[in-house]
Structures are given as C-alpha cells and as structure tokens.
C-alpha cells in the first residue's frame, strides 16, 4: 500500500558517527507515541490513524524500539505477533530510520532486537512485506536470513509488487546450537561491521 523511494547509501563519509552513540530504547509509553508517529509520517506519504499506531504499541510494547542520537529520535521499529493459522508468528509492521542516519546499522539493530524478543516469546517465524524496488530493505532482511516467500502482484496502490519475506526459526529440538543463541554479542558487532544500506520502509497491508 505504501512505497518509499529508497536511496542507496554507502558508509563513505559517514564514519564520524560512532555506533555507541546511538541509544536503543524499548517503547516506554504514550510519551514515545508522538515520536514514532512523526517519524513514520515524515517518511511516508500515506498516513496511519493514531489507532493504528496504538493497536501495535499497546498490544506489543515489548516489540517496538526507538533509536536515539543525542536525545533525538532517529529510527523506530513497530511489530506485532500472534497466531496465524497454525503458527505463532511475528510481523514487522514499520521500520524507519531517517535519512541522515541510514547506512550505520541502526535499522539492523532495531529489527534484530524485535526479532530476538519474538523468538524468545515462542514465535516460529517472522514475516513482513517489502516493495520489490526497495533494494535496501531487501538486502537487510536477506542478511538476517529472510527468504522471499511470495511475490504479491500490485500489492501497493501505486501498482508496485511486494515480496512477502519470511524468516523461519530453527526447530529447537532439531537444532540445539543456534548461532544467535550461542553468541549474541558476536552477531551484533558482526552486523555493525558489514557496510550496508539502511532502509526505511513501512510494511503495510496487515
């Protein structure tokens, strides 16, 4: 339903910002709501009513995160989880990092935090939709292990197709040693070292 023009950004010339200067905060209540809303509104032409935001952040506050730099909110992720047919699945609804802060691993960190909570909460898989033209988002989710499960024909009103992306968690009994569980910290720093294009994207049509 919604699209964003993605600009590929590289790490070049942006090294002045230290990853440690970014502070990640779990959604903390109504005072965070205007921050989340303005960030999403700013990046997307199509607005959501306040009820849409509340739907997510009231029911799953633990799945929403905000990224701050010197007190300024520069990125956010909003998610949900629940029973879908026979599986318990997580869903990434909105992910935004404002332009000057893209390419620094912020989106990866935000979304990784949400996915971890989903995994710990017993989700079997995580899904989302991304526009086929949103190279940045597709690369980011690809690195996290998402596959393109389906293509959704003219999913967005502007006529652009979407991919449904899916991340399947390993079955614990089949797979006792997970890279993620085995060494959480390593995987974090690992992500930060990969130069990548951050993206902001609202995955709509829920």
């Amino acid at each position, binding site marked *: 339903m919604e699209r964003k023009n993605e600009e590929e950004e590289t790490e070049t010339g942006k090294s002045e910002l230290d990853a440690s200067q970014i502070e990640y905060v779990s959604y903390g209540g109504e005072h965070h709501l205007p921050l989340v809303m303005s960030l999403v509104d700013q990046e997307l032409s199509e607005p959501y009513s306040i009820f*849409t935001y509340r739907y997510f952040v009231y029911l799953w506050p633990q799945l929403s995160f905000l990224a701050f730099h010197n007190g300024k909110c520069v990125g956010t992720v909003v998610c949900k989880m629940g029973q879908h047919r026979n599986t318990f699945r997580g869903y990434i609804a909105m992910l935004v990092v404002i332009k000057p802060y893209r390419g620094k691993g912020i989106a990866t960190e935000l979304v990784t935090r949400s996915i971890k909570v989903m995994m710990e909460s017993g989700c079997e898989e995580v899904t989302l939709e991304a526009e086929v033209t949103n190279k940045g988002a597709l690369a980011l989710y690809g690195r996290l292990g998402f596959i393109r*499960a389906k*293509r*959704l024909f003219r999913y967005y009103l502007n006529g652009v197709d979407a991919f449904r992306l899916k991340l399947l*968690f*390993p079955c614990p009994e089949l797979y006792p040693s997970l*890279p993620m569980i085995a060494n959480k910290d390593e995987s974090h720093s*690992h992500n930060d070292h990969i130069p990548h294009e951050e993206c902001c994207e609202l995955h709509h049509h829920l």
Partner: protein
Amino acid sequence: MADDAAAEVFVPERTSIPSGDDSVWADVSPLLESACKDLRDGELIHGDNFNLFAAMSALEIMDPKMDSGIVCKYYSIDEAIENGAAPVPISINKTVDVQCTIDIMDHLLACEATWHKGHSLAQTVFSCIYLLRPDRTSSHALLHSYCRVIRATCKAVISVVSDARTHEEDDLFTMAYGLPLDGDGDEKCLSLLNAVEETISRQLRACKAPSSRRRVLEDMEPLQTNLDLEEGYCKALLCRLRFRKHFYHVLTSMRRPQGRGLELARKHIATCISELDCIYRSSDFLRSSACGTSEDGIENRTTASGCQPIGFDASLNCRLSAPTPPRAIKILSWKKAIEYFVKLLHDLDIICSYSLDPSLEGVLQFVVQFQKSQPDLVARAHLQLLLVQDGKLYGRDSMFTVITRAAVLPEVAKNHDVQKNEYFVQLGQLVINMLKILCTNAAWQRRKLGKMLQDWRVIYVQLEIAFRKEFGEVSSIPEDENFCVKIFQHILLWVEEQTYWIASRFLILGFELELYSPSEYCMVYWYIYVVLIKLSEKTHLKMAAKNDTGKRKGKKKRDSPKDVAREYRIPPAVLFLQCQICLAEGLTMMLAALRNEHMILQSRNPFNTEQERFIQHFELLQKACIPDHVSFHSFRESTTYARLSTLVMYNYFKDAQRIAKEAKSSFSNDPDKLAELRKIEQVAEHNSIALNVISRVGALDPTLKASFEFSHHPYFATAVVKRS
C-alpha cells in the same frame, strides 16, 4: 464508557421512522453528545472486535490525506454540471467543440488503459462526467456515440474478466457499483457510431472534393467552421471512431463459442492496430492547431493535442460511488495508452491465431509461451475463456477425452464408462483448474500451482486405491484383456507426469518472480534437477507405453528392422528434458563446488541456517512428497563433496551441449523448442568454459570471483568469472 453514559441519557423515541416488528428507532445524538464529554482527544469507544483492519480503516476527518470528502471540488454530479464542469455542447464555437471532443476521446483512452492496468473504473473511465449522465449528451451526436461505445466496451471487458475470474487480487477491476454502465440504448451503440462515422466521412469527402463538385455536396454542413482544418479534424475523428467500433467487434467476436469468431476477430484486430497508428499520427496536426499548449511535459499529457480535457473530475466518485481510495491516481499518458492498446491487440492476435491444438501438451506449451510476453489481465482473461468453455476444452472436447489423449490411450478410450468414476470427474476438474491458473499473472499463478500440487498428489493416491479395489493386484490380470486396467494405468502414469510438470513450473516461476537469492541458487537448481529427473522418467514410461500399444497393433502387418531401431531411440521429448537435467545438475554442482572451495561468499545468518531456507522454499513440494524421499539431507549429501577438480573431469555442461545438439534435429518444426534448445546450448557452453577457467586459474589467483547472471536464459544462470 458508552454504557455509563447511556444510563444517564434519556433517549427520546423518534416518530419520523416507523418502528418495525423487532425494531425501534431512536435518536442517539444526545447519547453521543454526552459520551463525547467523557472522551479526550485520541480516545475511542470500541467493541471487542476492533482489530487492526478496523484501526487502519479509521479516518481522521479533515485530514486531506485520509478524508476523501474534503478533496472533492463538488458535492454532486449535478453541482459539477451546474458549475459548467461538463457543458453540452462543449463550446458554441464549433471548431473548439470538435477540438475539445477529441481531447475527451483521448483522455478516455488513457483512462481506459489505466483501468486495464489495475486501477478502479470509478477513478479512471468514469471520472468523465459525460459518462455519468448518459442522457445529457444525446443532443451531441458525436460525443453521445462515443460515450455509448465506451460504456458498452467497459461492460464487455468487465464481463470477460469476471467470467474468467482471472482478476486475481485485482478485484478493483470489476467493481462498478453505482456506475451507469447500462446507459439506455448503449446496446445499440454501433448503429449510432456508424451513423456518425458516415456523416463525418461525407464531410471529409466534401472538403476534399474539387470546388466544382463541392456544389453538389453543398447541403452537407461542414464538421466545423475553419475550413483549413476541416480535413485534419475529420480524419482525427474518423480514426478514433473506427478504432472504437472495431475494438468493440474484437471483444464480441472473441466471445463467440468454441473459438468460432477468432478469424473474424483477427480482421478487426488488424484494423484496430492501423487505426491506432492513424490516431498516433494525428497528434502533430492536433498539437499545431490547438492553441496555447506548450511542448513541456508533452510526454506526460493524456491527450494528443496536449490540452487538458474538459469534463473530468476523478474526485467526484470518491464521494459518490464505487470503492475508490482517497489517494489520487496517475492516469497513463496518451502515448503510453496507445502503446498499451497496441500490446493488448497483439496479445489478442496471438490468441486468435492459435490453432486450438487438441493435445493438452500443445495447450500447455502455448499458454506458457504466451505468458512469456507478460500479457495483461484482459488478454489473459480472453485466453482463459477460450480454453475452458462449459467445462470443456475450447467448449468442444470433454476433459476425459483430453486426459485420455494426454495419457496416450487409443481414441476409443474417451467413450469408456470409467469416466463416470468420481475420481476421474475430479481429475477433469483439476485439469480445468490448472488451465485457468496457468492464465493468471505469474505471482498468483505460482502460489496457486504450489497449492494445487497437493490436490494432484491426493487424486493420484485416490485413483490408485480405486484401481486396486477394483482390480486387486495388477500382476494377476492379463493386461491385454482388460481395457479398463489399461486406462487406469495410463492415466495414473500421466497424473504423475503432470504433477512433476506443475512442480517444475512452480520452481521455474520463482526465477521470473525474483524469489531466489544467489545464495539459494544451489538448492533451487538441485530441486529442479530432482524434479526434472522424475518428469523425464514418467514421460519416458508414457512414451514406451504408447509404443507398446503401437507395436502390438503393427506386429501382424510389419516387423521391419527399421521399426525395431526406432524403439531404442530416446524420444525427443525426453532428450529435451535430459539436456535441462544436465544443465541443472551442472549448475548445482558448480555452485556447490564454488562454495565448498570458498570462492563465493557465504554469509552466516544470525537467526537460522540453510536448512530453514530450504524448508521454506520447498515446503509445498515436500508436503506433497514431490518427489518421494527427498529432503534437505539428500541435498546436503549430494553437494557436500562437490569439488571443482572432479567437475572438470566430469563436465555436466558438455553433456547438456551434446544432448541439446542431438535434440535440435527432432524439433525442426517447432521454433519455440528450437529457440529453447539454442539457449540451453549457449548457457552450457559458457558455463563449461567458466568452469575450466576457474579450475585452472582459481587456485593461483585468490581474487578470482564467480557470479551468476541470466544473460542467455531466463532461469538457467550463466557463470561470470572476474577478478575482484
């Protein structure tokens, strides 16, 4: 909250709406007013069923992005008309009137193309105020005839698409609630159109006639007042009217049963294309004679003249009728619209020139080939309606007949009573569903084919059980004596073959839809390889069974050594599959070897492994046991030990090349298959060379990197070796 408020408020009974047996009407305004006092900004009263969909459907009133009401210029069609938004005549100056009419025609064409491309009818074609009030135009014969044929055409197109039900997730397409699709007398649209065309032809003849003859025609009033422009305007109008007429004929003749109107449709298609060319060429004249149009942005204009058309307001319907999202849509440019119609007509022409091949294999090949050019919805809907009519192929052959033919049974089998068996009836339905699905867009098609695999598997199992129940152990029955046994055996084999064909189509479509990332190519080619092996095995068995029948029949008459020799030849259809098998296997092993020798980057994912991605990609195939006993572990086993050094020794690509070359001689009459074989040869040749280069230089030069691209074939990748 609402309950508390209700307790305090007296709800007076309203007398204006009479109460029914079970209902009493009450005015809730006081209740709401009092409830509002309790509510703070941003709060709402909701029931338990307030879900995400409800939250997202909520509108913030007066926000122009959400509230379509405030974007509207007019509150009603009448108000728009009163304000002069759609005057009739458009101008009292006849020249201006003609100019404006042409602009309306052009913009309508652009709207129509935009509609076909997936936007709502209400926001495109029916943004035309003239169309919304069918009677108002009756005094303006030219505009009236055009509006009528547009409404009739829209109706015909909606009927094709809704009958075919290929509109997939695009249900916007057929939504026409509240739109006046049935203008009074629209069904006679062609007679009025012909009359108007006749008048303008005479006006054109009159203005072209030498002055001596002009007197004879003097009673003929010219189209407009500027005689220098008369010829140009007459011509511009004529091609537009004729296009509409022939396009309407195309749509109606293609709908004739059993493909009887296809030949006629082709003639109309040819005329349509040439009229479109005239329309296109009229733009120089129209631009030069229109005043006040600048050349900037002419590419984006929706009319040939470049002028804004009169009488359109897309926001009117947002308020008044069929579902229209608040957001304004972009109408295709006039040039793009013409391109769209040319493509549509070419696609329809391909359908009309189809020979109505009686063999299912031929049908499938045709549909797959047709889909390669990515035809749009309207063309695909026509194809589907042609293929399946009244539950029969082309409305002619029953599905059982089609199946027995596909299963290479003798012609007499088609009348056998066994067709009444419920599983054969179900199988017929599956074939119909498959044909319909193959006519849908690639994204939808892949999903439906994936789900359908399960049905094919189930029907196979059911048929097999029914067969065993009826005949017990196969070996105990002398085959020749029981024709029914033969029917079962052949059809069972064919069902398996068809299932693997669907599976291969499912896998291959993933490339077209860009569902596979390069790190997944290895497992995808491996799966294609195992499916194609099974497919070729079943095809081979089917051919052998056919030869068996043929042999037995011919035995008495001729038993020449030539016949015996032919038996031992691998059938061309199998060779065709074999070269693809070699290519898929070669790619699997090459990708695996590159990975095993660390020549392509393998990133580790934090949350899962290759196994999960394998499970996800092939879930539907695995669920349907296609093929049996195939799992992630068998994939790992066959690829873990792949090494470049062994691959060079046993080069699958060379086999692919050799077999493709051999197969080509059998397909000299089939240009599509020949082209495919040529592409396979090219990919095989390139990959064979790449493999040699990597194995020779790779060990010495660590900067050498291999990547894969689809430069020679849409789904068999070509390796590209570069120094990084």
